[in-house]
């Protein structure tokens, strides 16, 4: 079966949204930071074990810590959300509960995955402790740089959208 789903990547700026998509779509990475403005849209088709041929339309949004200001037009028709934070910068996950509430409010039924990125820069044990302390339940801890857990995160989203 053929399906097409719109997936939003949200999160503060510089957390690695663009890099994660680049790793997932073209299996590449750049250390240079080019700030995304507005939205970049790319597509990747994945074949799921269910037999579904899922076309993921990935909306790479300009990073912001003021999620309530995101334009409505960007949010319409969203099927799934990947919320990305940067494990090296507490500022990007300190208010995660508030951020998630805003997201849930805006895209009511869509599944939301929480991804902590840049794991290659830190000691996993430190991150786990930090996240525990802040009561953060992340779904995936990734590195766009090494590719660790990147496919897993996107494919999990794909299979949730297939269901």
């Amino acid at each position, binding site marked *: 079966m053929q399906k*097409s789903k719109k997936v939003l990547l949200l999160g503060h*700026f510089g957390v690695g949204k663009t890099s994660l998509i680049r790793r997932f779509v073209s299996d590449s990475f750049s250390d240079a*930071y080019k700030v995304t403005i507005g*939205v970049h*849209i790319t597509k990747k088709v994945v074949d799921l074990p269910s037999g579904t041929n899922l076309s993921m*339309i990935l909306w790479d949004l300009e*990073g912001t810590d003021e999620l309530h200001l995101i334009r409505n037009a960007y949010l*319409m028709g969203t099927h799934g959300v990947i919320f990305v934070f940067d494990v090296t910068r507490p500022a990007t996950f300190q208010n995660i509960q508030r951020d998630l509430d805003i997201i849930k409010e805006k895209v009511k039924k869509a599944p939301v995955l929480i991804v902590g990125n840049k794991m290659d820069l830190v000691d996993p044990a430190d991150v786990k402790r930090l996240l525990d302390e802040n009561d953060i339940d992340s779904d995936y801890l990734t590195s766009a740089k090494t590719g660790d857990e990147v496919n897993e995160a996107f494919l999990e989203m794909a299979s949730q959208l297939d269901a």
Partner: protein
Amino acid sequence: MLEKYKTQFIGNSIQFVVLDEKGLVRESDNTCFLLKTGDSLKEFHPFFESLEAIVPEANNEITFNCIHLESEGKELITDLVLRREDNALLLVIYDLTQHYNEYQSVAQARNESIIQEQLIALKNIELEERERFKDQFIRNFSHEIRNPLTSIMSLTQVLSQTDLNAEQEQMVQYLNQSNAQLRLLLEDILSISMISSGKLQLVEKEFNLIKLLNLLTFTYTAKAKEAGLEFVAEIDEKLPQIVASDRLRIYQVLTNILDNAIKYTETGQIEFSVQLNQKRANKANIRFEISDTGRGIPEAQLESIFTSFTQVYDKDKEQGSGLGLSIVKGLLRLMDSEIQLTSELDQGTRFFFDLNLKYPLPSSQRTDKKDEVLDTVVRKTLKKDKYKLLLVEDDVMIQTVVFKFLSGTDRFFIEIVSDGAKVMEEVVNTQYDLIIMDINIPNISGDQIARLIRDFPFKGIKDIPIIGVTGTLYDEDIAAYKAAGMNAIIPKPFAQEELLKAVFRYLK
């Protein structure tokens, strides 16, 4: 005419596309992108694939800002407007690439600087935490090591009193030296950690500079003599007598440099010179200078001799070069000054620094007045003609100094005990009016003795006034000594005046 201008202005930047319900191109003016009739927009760009989900949710017209569209090597940043017409869809593409690129560079600069700030703030927190941890560690460590060190020292002492052959005696002597070195090292490490953690605060008080310099001259003439060196002091007569500063720290700086000079000089002399650079308003700028005829410092090491214990164990560096100079550097920095030096191999080294010291106006009469005050205190409070004092002190130098300080008044019989273990016996056998006690004495520490005395069941012993003498820098320690039962604590080094004042205050 108008059309022509309009085309010139917006011609290249707005494209109109008419689509059928399936999203296939019916008509397009192809201003920005080439779209042929029958083309599927979904194939053209994935943005349009998501429209399937968006359009049902949208009103009749919907605008998307700042959408990146790329096709066949062309990349534009656009605003897109979609409008529902009767059984058709109108798409307007505004090419705003230039406008958005400007916005991009603003956002780039803003984001980069915010991220940078966040990372720096984080680094600082981490550094502070590490620093705190290090300080705590050093404090605990030096505290813990004190007990075993004390037993090593007292056992060495006990050992030295047993029957030893010449070789053994020599070894015990080395042991004693090493113990003393270890204790010094421990204190140095503590000082450095306090300076570097900013815990050390200067205490500015008026004091007699000339007396301090004389005390140093007195002490170091003896020390130099012991080391077979000559000591030459040149103290400027124009120096203000009373200055306001942290006497203890100035003393610490000078003794560190002087000790260092004696240590590294085999023959010749140590010169100690203090000269007035200038007086202005109520500030005197004073040059302190200490030069030796020692081996000198190789140029390559000039910088590193001031670095602290993280680097001090450099294997090229002389063993036991100590931490004194990094303490000097840290303390002088606290006093807004800087240690400087010139050195020539095998000729000697000259350390110098300038201090800006406040002095009170008018200057000269004040000390006399103080002395008068002291005299009246002495006269008023004394009931007996002569008092019996016990001095518990193992350092011969300090014994001499205290003796000198007190004997001038001609009011005291002074007994000296240098071993902590013998104090109680002495106190029980002789009725003393006051005890002056060093905290760091062999076998039993001064504060422990104070506690024993205070716990003693008899009046006349349990209430003997005790004045503690200590080199410690810590308020906590001083509080602990007082809690142990000491009436007052005098920090080393002390001036005659301070000692006498304390003694007379507690004599009954």
